[in-house]
């Protein structure tokens, strides 16, 4: 078994499917096998869901055992989980109710925090501390004023400024960024193929 533990073998497990998929993509050969291998992706991702479940359970049971701060509330987590699990396979309407009528508003409210935090933390911190930040802030104010209906409601010129910013300088800058991101993706993959992931990761593998 120990031969499989070698770093090179894991490297091969990465390179072989990668090269196979790339070759079949550009040549169009062996389409059936290619589709099958592509559909492994969803399967493996699904198994990671269950891995996540195990991690959360482990973490929280430990917390309850150690009686950490607020451990009294943690059983609710398990109650919620099993309520969903059981209702899914006994009564579909109650499952729908749990998800659509209870989880949905709470999720919306939870994500709402982002907007609320953003409001204060960000705008209290947003300062024109150098010229780059000034340009960003100026561009942002024009965008905000032109994008909300109130700006064009006062004078149509705000909408025109916004459209111009969005169409010309923004598109140019974004194109530059996109090209950079595209080459970044390829760079990452090529580096991985060459086995260049640094010692940090391989060291970590031994003592996860």
């Amino acid at each position, binding site marked *: 078994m120990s031969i499989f533990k070698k770093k090179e073998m894991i490297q091969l497990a990465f390179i072989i499917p990668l090269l196979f998929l*790339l070759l079949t993509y550009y040549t169009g050969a062996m389409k059936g096998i290619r589709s099958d291998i592509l559909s492994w992706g969803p399967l493996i991702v699904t198994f990671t869901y269950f891995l996540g479940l195990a*991690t959360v359970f482990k973490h929280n049971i430990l917390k309850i055992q150690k009686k950490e701060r607020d451990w009294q509330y943690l059983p609710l987590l398990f109650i919620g989980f099993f309520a969903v699990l059981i209702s899914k396979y006994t009564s579909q309407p109650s499952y729908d109710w749990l998800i659509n009528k209870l989880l949905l508003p709470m999720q919306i409210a939870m994500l709402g925090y*982002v907007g609320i*935090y953003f409001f204060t933390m960000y705008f*209290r*911190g947003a300062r024109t*501390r150098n010229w780059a930040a000034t340009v960003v802030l100026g561009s942002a104010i024009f965008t905000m004023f032109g994008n909300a209906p109130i700006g064009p409601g006062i004078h149509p010129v705000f909408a025109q400024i916004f459209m111009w910013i969005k169409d010309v300088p923004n598109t140019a800058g974004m194109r530059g960024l996109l090209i950079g991101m595209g080459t970044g993706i390829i760079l990452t993959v090529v*580096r991985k193929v060459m086995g*260049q992931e640094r010692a940090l990761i391989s060291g970590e593998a031994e003592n996860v």
Partner: protein
Amino acid sequence: MLLLLAAFIYYNVKETEKGNVPKIRTMPTIEAISEVVGRAAEMGSSVHYSTGGGGLTDQYAAMTISALEIMGEVAKVCGEMGVEFRYTCNKAELVPIAQDLVKTGYIQAGNDAMYHDAMVVYVGEQQRALMAECLSYMLNERPAGNMMFGAGFWETEVIMGAGAVIGAMQIGGTPRLYHTPTFIMTCSHALIGEELYVAGALVGKADRDLGAIKGVDWFKFICLGLIGLSAVLSTVGSTLFQYILSL
């Protein structure tokens, strides 16, 4: 094209292995590290560091590694100037690596007496916990310097915003486009896009990575040429460029 890019990268990496390390342009953000730590030393305060929500097993691994490399450098500078360092994270796998890096940094600076394990704080896997912990640290301890590199998610706004509110000197950066404006707004120097990878390689003295970056640069020169060509061709009304692309 793909093969061309791969070949460029391969060639330059091999060149670097022979000893021809390319010269990379300097980055104000990296030079600002000592400035930030120096200010913290003057004020007798600490430096806070975060790598955001990215881990080592997801697609953000490359960003996190670069961020960790920068962290090693920051820890070293902190050790030299005798400044308290603090790292907050919400990924368990980062804790041993981070402790090791910080310790190494302090030892390299000859100040290993100052290091203690509590410099690395793990807050559990949840993002909200990370936000709350960083917030309470910032507002109560008031570090003079705040840095955040790596794959930033929504905690970025909270961490950097809190730092700006308390008037800490901040540097940071992320390749995640969505949160890049935050860094520019709240930092005195920020890394945009791929600059983080380059900075990581630069600080970590990872020569092969620098070679790879040079290879990509060669490719970018070709892209620049193609931009010029495309502009000229489309001005004279030729569709030759589309033809070249379809090859």
